[in-house]
């Protein structure tokens, strides 16, 4: 069949399909879409096989592409299933990242412990990590005489602090993850310095005996926040390791695989940090709650988070 006959025969059909794609809600009728898709695929195959000219093939190609994109917009598995995510996907992702999490944990905690212990015993060591104005600000914040405790008392309301914690903490976690693309070094640096800083703060305040204001404040949200930071470091390290050691894949394919696998970790980290910011702004900073209540609830949250983090293994064996 000559090209012009072919175009005359099917042109009206193509025009109709094109027109139907312009209408809003065009992708909703998947049965019609599927029919159009099969028909167009056949026409494109014929046009390619008979070596019709480039313009016609291009037109059919772009039409198939449009229908194809409409058709696959409605894949059911791409809908986010929150329940399955909490019960299975996130714990399983944590389990599969366990070695990365171990490394991330060590790089985060060891510098903190060492710096904390050093500062606890050596009065001047804290100035190696922070300058004197930071130290004074810290001491003022956790002074046992204050009504509300928090990082900076610039805020009057808890909602402001909620916004601040969201922006600040989730920003750090996202950067920690993204730093993994620098063959993991970015993630390691973020983990190391945050661990160092947090350990130093704890060591300094413990030495000053501000124990009753500092620890009840941090224990509640610390469960979610610190764990999420370790997870984000682990997700970043996963990317970095995929680049460093691609195994039997090409480096690009290896990175692409890793990129798909860390997605549940990112969802989880985000949700954990939202919870942490909520606790930090509305619970931890409250001065009306007794220390006993804060310690009890905080410990329970730690148990919950740790139990949850270790619960993924049973989903692995099928």
């Amino acid at each position: 069949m000559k090209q012009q006959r072919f175009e005359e025969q099917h042109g009206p059909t193509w025009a109709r399909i094109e027109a139907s794609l312009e209408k809003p809600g065009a992708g909703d009728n998947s049965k019609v879409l599927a029919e159009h898709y099969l028909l167009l695929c056949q026409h494109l195959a014929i046009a390619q096989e008979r070596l019709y000219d480039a313009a016609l093939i291009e037109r059919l190609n772009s039409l198939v592409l449009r229908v194809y994109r409409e058709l696959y917009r409605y894949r059911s598995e791409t809908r986010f299933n929150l329940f399955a995510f909490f019960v299975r996907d996130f714990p399983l992702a944590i389990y599969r990242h366990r070695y990365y999490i171990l490394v991330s944990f060590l790089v985060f905690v060891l510098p903190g412990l060492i710096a904390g212990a050093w500062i606890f015993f050596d009065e001047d060591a804290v100035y190696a990590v922070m300058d004197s104005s930071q130290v004074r600000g810290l001491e003022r914040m956790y002074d046992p005489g204050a009504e509300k405790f928090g990082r900076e008392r610039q805020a009057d309301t808890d909602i402001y602090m909620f916004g601040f914690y969201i922006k600040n903490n989730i920003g750090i976690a996202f950067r920690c993850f993204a730093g993994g693309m620098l063959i993991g070094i970015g993630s390691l640096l973020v983990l190391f310095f945050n661990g160092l800083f947090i350990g130093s703060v704890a060591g300094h305040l413990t030495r000053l005996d501000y124990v009753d204001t500092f620890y009840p404040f941090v224990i509640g949200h610390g469960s979610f926040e610190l764990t999420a930071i370790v997870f984000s470091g682990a997700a970043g390290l996963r990317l970095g390791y995929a680049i460093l050691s691609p195994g039997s894949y090409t480096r690009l394919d290896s990175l692409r695989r890793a990129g798909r696998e860390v997605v549940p970790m990112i969802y989880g980290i985000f949700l954990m940090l939202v919870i942490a910011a909520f606790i930090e702004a509305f619970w931890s900073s409250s001065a009306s709650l007794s220390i006993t209540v804060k310690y009890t609830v905080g410990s329970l949250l730690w148990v919950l988070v740790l139990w949850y983090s270790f619960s993924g293994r049973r989903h692995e064996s099928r």
Partner: protein
Amino acid sequence: LLDTRYRVEIPGGIELEALVVGPIPRCFAFAIDIVLRQMVIIGLVIVSIPFDFFGVGGGLYLLLTFLIEWFYPVAFEVLWRGQTPGKKTLGISVINDDLTPVTLGPSLVRNLLRVVDFLPLFYLTGLVTMVMNPRFQRLGDIAAGTLVISVRESARPAAVENIEPLAPSTSLLRNEQTSIIDFLHRSRQLSEPRQRELAAILEGVTHGKDDDGVQRLHRIGAWFLGVR
């Protein structure tokens, strides 16, 4: 080979083609998005000042700037067929590398890794990887398995009218016939000297010189196209 075509075999049993888009249109799209984002943020500042800035107003301001900073592209790409307003203006779109629409996970990965593509400043890393990659992917695109393609419709060829078909004197192969049809369809984009130059190659087929040769080649094209 300098070719921006990207081919994928899709479940229809055919190979689909898409044109990947290079750094320049993507930069323009990004610039448009940046301006839009800053305008929204400035609007937020103006709105939140009458409220107590260190109270509820400020809290919402921080929350919304956080969302705009990290999730502006994600929201648009997932909900608006892979297009932020800037990309829509430029006629480009983000798509998974199997040419299915981009979903939440890949979009999130490519946009979170934007931070690294930005390093050390002004997207230098992203630019370098984009130029080194045959599919123009920046680091975030590679990790997410996404591409940026052109979704702008190309111009239709001019309708073939008033051309009397002419049967060629020799038989030609199919791909040779296609080339002659292409020549006919593209005749408006080619300058006349260039057309004469091309037609001169086929003097053995057309048996005509200069403009006559071009004319005859057009008529042969019409004949192969099926004009009767």
